[in-house]
Each structure stands twice: as C-alpha cells, then as structure tokens.
C-alpha cells in the first residue's frame, strides 16, 4: 500500500508543453506513472512523448478519464488552473508552482477541501509511491519500494534523506513533498494520519524547517493519535529571525517558528531527532 497516490492515479499535466512540462512528463512516464493527458490552452492536438494535449481540463477528463492533475503553470495562472481542475472533478491536485500569492493559495486550498479533493503543495516537489507512481518533479532514481513513509516541507533535503535510506536498504511506502509555502493543502497531520492507517508503512520520517507551527501541531497530534515510530529532521536551527531562508514559509517572525520550539515539541512527542540529514537513516535502522 501507499498513501494518497498509487497506480490508480491517471495523471494530466497542466502546463504540459513548456520546458518543465515536457521534461517531467518524460521522467514520470519512465517511472511508470500513468500520464494520460496534457493541458495547455491553445495547444490541443499536439502530443508530448505520445501523450495527447488538450485545451481544457474538462476536455482531457472526458477523453481520458484523468483523475489527478499536476500543476506546472506559472504562478500568476496557478489559481485559475487549480480551480479549473477541481471544477472538472479532479480529486487529486499536486501544485509544483512556486511564488504563488498566498491569498490565491488560501482560496484554492479551501476550495479543494469543499470539493473533497486532496491538494498537495504549492511550492512542492510532488509525491512518489515507489513501484506505483510519481507525480511531480522528484528525481525518480533515488526511490525504492519499502516501509518508510516520508513527509517533508523541503525538496532537495528530502532527496538526500530518501537516498540515504536507500543506501541502507530501506525503501519508502510513499514520499510526499508538502511544500515550502506558508499556506499548503496537505499538512504533516494529514500525512501522519494516512501513514498511521497504511499497513505497509512501519515508520514515518518528517522533514521540517523553521517558520510556522506545523511541527508543533504535528507533535501534539502524534501524542494523541499516532502509534508508529516517527523520526524527524529540522532545518534552520541556526537561522536568524526575520530572514526568509529561501522558502516563503521558512522565516522566524514575531518570535514564532524557531527550531528550538520545534525540537522541544518533537521531544515531548517522543520523536527521534537527527542532527544531520543523513543520520535519519541510522536512527530509523536502530529504532524500528
């Protein structure tokens, strides 16, 4: 098993004919993802790696039964793209686009909830269930089927951690990149609940960073609801307040969102913390 996505996801890509779209449709097909359609307004009739392109999401859904969308459009068109997907009945939307105004994200996150859809991102690398599907821009080569669930606010750091798990012979049930923005559709709590129910997930790795209270919220949730072992790494222990460390969400503002507070919260929830990203694999090996 896996969480959120598997071989049943039939994926359409919004923003299919751009540089990123073409590259990642190829990468996803190589991984085994069922990419069934692309959507770029005005480009209907074209093909990308043999995948047909449509003008609208609705056309793509009618022709191909797509149930999942990967959003790669530029930030200023992202809100419209997500609304279009949700209105066409898409039930899983993965938003890769970064720099989306957060008032836009606030609207589409709430609309997804109203439509009972899973929304992952924005500003995320996507999600992969090894052996089944990969929806996003995560590098396919680092994954391996297995029993560790990974949920992360970061991109590259996750690849590093996943890769070090693989080097120790530990595969992943699902690896989900939640996104580095202040407003995201799927949170640590959503991922933890899903991993808790997933019989193939034996341990969960959370990759957090400074900013916001997602890690503190997750810790409270773990104490009450999660029985599986949880491991974590937090980036930004030494980040100064008021400086935005690359991600829009990674900022210590008004005294909130410090690594210290996150570490204390995780310790209270008996989450094992790694000092270096690659130490996660050692911890998982030792304690699960």
């Amino acid at each position, binding site marked *: 098993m896996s969480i959120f996505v598997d071989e049943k996801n039939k994926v359409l890509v919004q923003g299919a004919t751009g540089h990123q779209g073409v590259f990642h449709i190829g990468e996803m097909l190589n991984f085994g993802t069922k990419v069934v359609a692309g959507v770029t307004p005005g480009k209907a009739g074209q093909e990308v790696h043999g995948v047909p392109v449509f003008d609208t999401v609705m056309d793509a859904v009618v022709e191909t039964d797509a149930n999942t969308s990967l959003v790669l459009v530029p930030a200023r068109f992202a809100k419209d793209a997500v609304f279009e997907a949700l209105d066409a009945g898409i039930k899983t939307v993965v938003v890769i686009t970064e720099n989306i105004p957060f008032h*836009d994200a606030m609207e589409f996150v709430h609309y997804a909830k109203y439509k009972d859809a899973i929304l992952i991102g924005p500003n995320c690398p996507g999600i992969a269930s090894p052996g089944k599907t990969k929806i996003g821009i995560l*590098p396919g080569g680092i994954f391996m089927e297995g029993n560790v669930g990974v949920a992360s606010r970061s991109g590259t750091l996750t690849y590093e951690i996943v890769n070090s798990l693989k080097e120790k012979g530990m595969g992943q049930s699902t690896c989900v990149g939640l996104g580095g923005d202040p407003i995201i559709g799927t949170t640590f709590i959503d991922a933890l609940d899903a991993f808790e129910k997933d019989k193939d997930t034996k341990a969960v790795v959370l990759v957090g960073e400074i900013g916001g209270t997602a890690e503190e919220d997750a810790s409270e949730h773990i104490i009450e609801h999660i029985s599986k072992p949880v491991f974590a790494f937090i980036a*930004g222990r030494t980040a100064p307040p008021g400086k935005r460390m690359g991600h829009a969400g990674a900022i210590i503002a008004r005294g909130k969102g410090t690594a210290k507070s996150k570490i204390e919260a995780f310790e209270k929830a008996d989450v094992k913390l790694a000092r*270096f990203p690659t130490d996660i694999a050692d911890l998982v090996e030792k304690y699960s």
Partner: protein
Amino acid sequence: MKLFEYRGKELFDKYGISVPNGKLVNDEKDFSDLKFPFILKAQVPIGGRGKAGGIKSVENKKDAKEKLSQILGMDIKGFTVRKVLAEEKVDIKKELYMSIMLDRSQRTSLLMVSGKGGMDIESVPDDLIFKEWINPFIGIQPFHIRGTISKLKLEKEEGKQVANVLSKLYKMFREYDCELVEINPLIISSDGDVIALDSKVTINDDALYRHSDIVAENVELTPLEKDAKEKGIAFIQLDGNIGVIANGAGLTMATLDALTHFKGDGGVFLDLGGTDDPEKVKQAFELMKKAKPSVIFLNLFGGITKCDTVARGVKAVISKEGIDCPVVTRIKGMNEEKAKDILKDAGLITAATLQDAAQKSCDLAGER
C-alpha cells in the same frame, strides 16, 4: 515587503481609515503647514524605534529643527533613518489594538483585537486578545465584527466607528495581498474619533506584480542581496565568514546548521534552487565571490539540478577569474561522477559527507 509607516498610512487613508494629520519632513521649511506640538517619527522597517530615540515630541520650530537633525541619519538596529514623518498630536482617550494576518495552521485570515493597545501585543495576556478566523470564501461578515467589537466594551458610537475600521482593514488586507496589517494603537480621541496612530503593513512579495502602485523599497536588503534578487537568486548575507552554496532551501539551511555544529559561522546563504542552467550557477558563484567569504562550501545533492551543470558554472568562473579563497565541495546525486571530473583540476577541496565537508570548511575558516 514591509511598508514604511507613512506608506501604510497612505493605504489606510485610501481605504477611509483616519490617520493623524502629517507629512514627511526633511527640513524646517516643511514644518509650515503643521500645528505644534507635533511628533517626529523615524521611518524604519523594524520595531523598537521609540526606545532607540527615533520618536520625539516637539514644541516649537527651534525644538523641531534640532530634534529632526538628531533623528535623520540615526542608526536604529542597523537601519539608517532617511525619512521622518511629522504628525500632529492627538488627545488619546483609549488605545486599542487591531490586526489581521495570515494564520498558517488554519489557512485563513486571523483577525485580532484587544482593548490593550499601545504595547507590544506579545506581552498582552491571551485572554485580553479576541480572535476571529475568516474563511476566504465568506469574507468578513457582520457577525465577525459584532463578536469582536462586543468584547471591547466600547460606547455605542465608538463601537460603530471601530467596526467600520475593521471592515475597511479587512478589505485592504485582501485587496492588497497583505501578510499582515496591524494598527497599534488604534485610538479613540477625546473628540470621539477613531484614528490609526501607527501602521504595520507587510505585502506578500509574490503578489507585488498586481500592485503597481506599491513602490518597492527594499530597504532591508544589502547591495549584493538586491543584485541577487534582480537575478532571481536566493542569497542572504549573514554574520559569519563561510559562504554556503547548496541547492534547495532546506539543504542550504541544513548546511549552515552543520557549520554551526562544528563551531563555524555561515556568512552567506545561497540557494541555487531547482535551476539546471549553468549560466545561472555562474551568476550565483560570482555573487558569492563578491561577498568575500573566507571559505566557500559547495554542498550539492543532484536531482533536477544536475551536479555537472553546477560544476560547469563553477568551473567557468574559476578558470576565467581564479579564486582567492578555499572552496570545499561535497557533491552527491545525479551525475556526481561527471561533476567531479569537471572540477578535478580546479584546485578544490573535496569531501565525501556533509559532516566531513563542514568540519573542513570550519577548520579552514578558522585559519584565515
């Protein structure tokens, strides 16, 4: 982007929220249309300016001239004061607090009001702050306003006016893509008027493209940071002397953390992000050189950003201009062998793990 107080007040005025009569002043000529006594307020994008001497009350022209010259050019927590707002005094009967901000956990706007205005809201006890969360699809409704206003125990007419400010402020928060709008204090004057004495407004950088009337005043950036921003590179200058280049915000932060663990100090945070363009890497590396770190630490995990792409960009700069500080590299992931091959004659120091590379960087930085 944080707006200066006077810019925030220009927006308040546009939305019909009253602000004191005032203007920016440069010299005594500017005092002519202001009534004494008034207040001079340093315009800096940071709190605590009152304690730093950046706010002064003035009684007459001579007094004003003297105090203005003290404030202009003053350093407040690293920011030089270049603009001073002069505002006529208002008689205060009550001080309130009002703000709207993004609530990341609830993924909505959070409205907060308190009867304890004028002080740092962090120091106001929680039970004296009244909160409402606003779903973006219904927006602010009369019940939200009634609910919060009722907690403030105001006289009827005052309550009406404060309610009015609240709905205008919400409108501004949404229409201007604000991360935060804060009025502290929002005062009720002895004449019964409701006036915003201060403004803290932060506009979401990612939405600035749709607000052409907001002039970018990136006063918080160093010249190199400004340059980087124009080139679309995530580049932050810090206090230490080791320049970190990595790909991805999380990995870059983790690299800085590793340096601290080995008793070193990061001087630059440079996140290459998801680029796979050697030209962009070249620009980034040039910026790093300009920051003059004692040591450069390049930490890569190649995925979409391929290791050899970064290697090519770095090599291009080194072979053209040379490099006058040690460069420690730790390269892993997609095309790492190719990258190592490209860099093998460039005179760089290589390490296999993050820990090893961080230790080497710190040792070298300590020697210089």
